[in-house]
C-alpha cells in the first residue's frame, strides 16, 4: 500500500476517526461562529442599501448561502454514497446519514427565506418556477433518503439502499443549478460567471464570508453527527464500549 492510501484507511477507520474528529469539530465551530458574525455584520450593517430593493435584499445573506449549501450537502452525500458502495467504507455511510438532515434543514431555510423574499419582489410567496420547484423536489429527495435509511431494521441494508438513492438523485443537482439558464424564470440568474461577478464588491464580500461560515458550520455539525452515527453503527464492537464506558 502506498503511504497515501495507508493514511486514508487509517483515517477512515471508525475508532480513529472518532478520536481525530473531536478537536477538528471544535475548531470548526469557532471558525463558523466568527465568520457568520462577521458576515452578518458586513451584510446587515456595512453593505449599502440596494437602490432597487431597499433593505429587503439583505435576506440574501441567509438565502444564498443556505441555497448553495443545500446543493453542496447533497453532493457530499452522493460522494460518500459512492465511496461507501465501492470501497465498502463504513465511515462514508455514517457521513451520508449524518449529512441528510443537515441538508434538509439548509433546503428548508432556502425555501423559507426565498418565499419571504418573493413576497416583496414578485408579489407572492410561491410561484411554480423551475428553480423553486426543483429546490422543493430536492427537499423531498432529502426526506426520501432519510425515510429509506431508517426503514430497514438492519442498518447496513438501510445505508446501502439509501446510498443508491443518493447516487441516482444526484442528477437533480445540475438541474436545480442550471434551471435558471434553461428557462427564463422569475428567479435570479447566476450572479457568478466564472470568477467575475455582477454584484458590487461592498455587497459581495459579506456574502462570501457568510458562505465560508456556512461551510464551517456544516463541517462542524457533520463531524459531530457522524461521531454519534458511528457509535450507533458500531455499538456492538469493543472500542465503542470502551469509549462509552469512559
Amino acid at each position: 500500500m502506498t503511504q497515501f492510501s495507508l493514511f486514508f484507511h487509517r483515517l477512515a477507520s471508525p475508532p480513529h476517526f472518532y478520536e481525530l474528529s473531536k478537536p477538528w469539530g471544535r475548531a470548526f465551530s469557532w471558525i463558523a461562529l466568527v465568520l457568520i458574525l462577521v458576515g452578518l455584520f458586513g451584510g446587515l450593517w456595512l453593505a449599502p442599501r440596494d437602490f432597487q430593493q431597499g433593505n429587503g435584499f439583505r435576506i440574501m445573506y441567509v438565502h444564498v448561502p443556505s441555497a448553495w449549501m443545500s446543493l453542496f450537502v447533497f453532493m457530499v452525500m452522493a460522494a460518500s454514497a459512492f465511496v461507501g458502495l465501492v470501497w465498502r467504507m463504513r465511515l462514508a455511510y455514517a457521513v451520508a446519514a449524518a449529512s441528510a438532515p443537515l441538508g434538509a434543514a439548509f433546503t428548508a431555510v432556502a425555501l423559507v427565506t426565498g418565499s419571504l423574499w418573493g413576497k416583496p419582489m414578485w408579489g407572492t410567496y410561491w410561484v411554480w418556477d423551475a428553480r423553486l420547484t426543483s429546490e422543493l423536489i430536492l427537499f423531498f429527495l432529502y426526506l426520501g433518503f432519510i425515510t429509506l435509511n431508517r426503514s430497514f431494521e438492519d442498518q447496513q441494508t438501510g445505508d446501502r439502499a439509501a446510498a443508491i438513492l443518493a447516487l441516482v438523485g444526484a442528477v437533480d443537482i445540475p438541474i436545480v443549478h442550471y434551471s435558471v439558464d434553461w428557462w427564463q424564470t422569475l428567479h435570479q440568474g447566476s450572479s457568478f460567471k466564472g470568477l467575475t461577478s455582477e454584484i458590487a464588491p461592498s455587497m459581495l464580500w459579506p456574502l462570501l464570508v457568510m458562505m465560508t461560515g456556512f461551510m464551517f458550520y456544516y463541517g462542524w455539525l457533520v463531524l459531530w453527527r457522524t461521531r454519534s452515527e458511528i457509535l450507533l453503527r458500531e455499538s456492538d464492537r469493543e472500542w465503542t464500549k470502551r469509549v462509552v464506558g469512559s
Partner: protein
Amino acid sequence: MSSGLAIRALELRRGRRLLSRSLSFELAPGGFIELSGPNGSGKSTLLRVLSGLGRLEAGELLWDGRSFNCASDEHRSRTLYLAHTDGLKGALSGEENLHLFASLRQFRDRSEEIQEGLDYYEMTGLKSVPCLRLSQGQRRRIALSRLRAFPASLWLLDEPTTALDRGGIDRFADHLSDHLAAGGMAILATHQSLPERLKPAIRIALGRSS
C-alpha cells in the same frame, strides 16, 4: 492442497444476533454434510451465506485450496441453492418454471434433461399445471427436479424433504447418492433424519442461539 470445500473461522450473524463465533469444516468431493441444531440456531443462515445470498461477516472460504468469493459467477455456476420457498412462479407450470430456470443458468435447450427430471420425481403428468395449483409436496418435487436437470457440484439444500411423502424422500435419497457417487458435494439442513443408507460425511450441530 486438499480438493473440495473448506471453511475456516466463519462468523455467523443474522441481524444483530451472533449465531456462531467461529465455524470451520472441510468437505471432500463425494461427501455431504448434515446440518442440524435447534430452531433458530442458524442452519438456514449458514446456507444463505455459502450460496452468496447472505453477507459474509468474517472467515475464509476455500475451494480446492484456493480462496473464493461466494458472490462470484464461478461459485454461482457450480452451486445450486434450494431454500424454504420453492422458487417457483405460481403462474407458470412446472415445465415452464424449469425452462425459465434453464434460461437463468444460461443453458440452451435442456428439454430432455427437464423431462427426465420431472419424470424422475413423478411429475410428468402434472407438468403443465400452474404451480399454484399443486399440492405442497408436488411443488417441492418440481423444485427438486431442478437438481436433476441442471448439474452443479455443490448442493445447498434447506430442509429439502419437507412436504415430501415417503416415496419422495426415497427418490431424493437415491438422487443424492447418485450425485455424491459422481463426485458432487452437498450441505443439507434438516430436522428429519435421512434414510439409513445415507451416512453423512460430517454432522454439524449448531448450538442454541443466545
